[in-house]
């Protein structure tokens, strides 16, 4: 039984725009329809500094096609790709609002003026927060693309954070767990220890035959920083997940897709979309 109208999500990345409708029912939340519309190379370039939409017409047409195929219009939650924001795990003092502390700590190291930063936080339990900063002009480039396609942006999320929100609800797979959240251009690596998120790192993705070996080193390094580097369980989500999981297993890692579709066939595999974690 549906309680509310389905929420439309539109996720951007360098190679495609992906849309999904999230239904909220008494039984929980679930994504019902998924569609992927490819983008021409160079039409969208994830970056923390400049407007990311380089070919507005191409992105607008992709969004319009997406909305038509999903059969929905109006309000949409936009999901920004990895590589557009700066994130850090912080512990806020008890006498300061977490958002204010996040702004104070994050903006000092940003490569653009502090007043241009949009900052929000995800509570991690206790006084710990995941703080995220993104440049206003970057967000506005995505909001403008949505508006041009006739969609009303009701909120803006970040793909790796959306993935982590869902994965935190699932709980760590074991005492030492590392999540690899793939984007087209960037990859985020998050390490959990004793049930809490300890480390989150993001770096440019170098896809290719050596990617699995390079990421295996990064996984081990991130797990060690979290306090336990011994054979962590590895959960992977995002484009290329199938190949990467296969290669990591071949190299001896305990890797698995972060989630899978259940009982339905979609034109795109659920584990290929990193931000589907919001539906978990």
């Amino acid at each position: 039984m549906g309680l509310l109208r389905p929420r439309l999500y539109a996720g951007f990345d360098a190679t495609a725009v992906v849309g999904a409708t999230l239904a909220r029912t008494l039984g929980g939340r679930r994504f019902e329809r998924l569609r992927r519309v490819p983008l021409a190379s160079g039409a969208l370039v994830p970056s923390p500094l400049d407007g990311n939409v380089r070919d507005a017409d191409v992105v607008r047409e992709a969004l319009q096609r997406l909305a038509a195929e999903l059969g929905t219009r109006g309000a949409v939650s936009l999901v920004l790709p990895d590589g557009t924001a700066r994130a850090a795990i912080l512990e806020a003092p008890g006498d300061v609002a977490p958002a204010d502390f996040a702004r104070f700590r994050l903006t000092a190291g940003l490569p653009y003026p502090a007043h241009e930063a949009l900052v929000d936080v995800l509570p991690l339990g206790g006084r710990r927060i995941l703080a995220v900063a993104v440049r206003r002009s970057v967000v506005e480039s995505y909001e403008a693309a949505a508006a041009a396609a006739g969609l009303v942006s009701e909120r803006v999320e970040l793909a790796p954070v959306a993935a982590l929100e869902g994965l935190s609800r699932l709980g760590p797979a074991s005492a030492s767990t590392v999540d690899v959240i793939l984007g087209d251009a960037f990859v985020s690596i998050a390490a959990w220890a004793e049930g809490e998120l300890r480390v989150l790192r993001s770096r440019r993705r170098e896809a290719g035959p050596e990617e699995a070996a390079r990421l295996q080193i990064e996984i081990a390094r991130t797990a060690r920083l979290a306090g336990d580097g011994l054979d962590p369980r590895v959960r992977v989500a995002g484009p290329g997940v199938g190949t990467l999981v296969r290669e990591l297993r071949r190299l001896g890692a305990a890797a698995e897709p972060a989630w899978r579709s259940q009982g339905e066939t979609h034109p795109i595999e659920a584990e290929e979309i990193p931000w589907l974690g919001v539906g978990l």
Partner: protein
Amino acid sequence: MDLSSHPRPRAGTADRVFLATSCLVFLAAALGAVSARDAANRAQAAASEAERMAAAAEDRIRSLSPRGPSVADALATRVALNAEAPLPRVLADLTALMPDAVRLRSLSVEYGDEVTLDAAVEARTPEAWDAFLDRLASSRRFQAVTPGPERREGEIRASLRMVYRGETS
């Protein structure tokens, strides 16, 4: 999380129903409070007497219990930490772990219950940055190493937060 350029509060139908219900409940509670005020006044006298007796009992218990850490104890801890981990030693230990292509841009040291460092670091190559992180993770002198945001355009600029354990750990 909402990173919209113009975030707006969302008040849907369910929110409005919830707000209206809350107002009704508040009104009912206020009326109940007024009628209960007289009874409360009568009970207050009895409660005051009970509080006085409870406070006397607490004083007695406190006088028999071992004392918790005082401000003086905390200050003594900080002074001891400062003596065990003076800034030059912390700085020397940290820079000793840095590869040639890594340099320290700034460092703040907080002497609290433990010695906490906030460092801003610059690395000429990703390999040097990764090597520095590996050395920190292997070091027994630096623990709870938490990398902050990494900026990877050209030279890497990043921040780190960690706890200094010195030679004893």
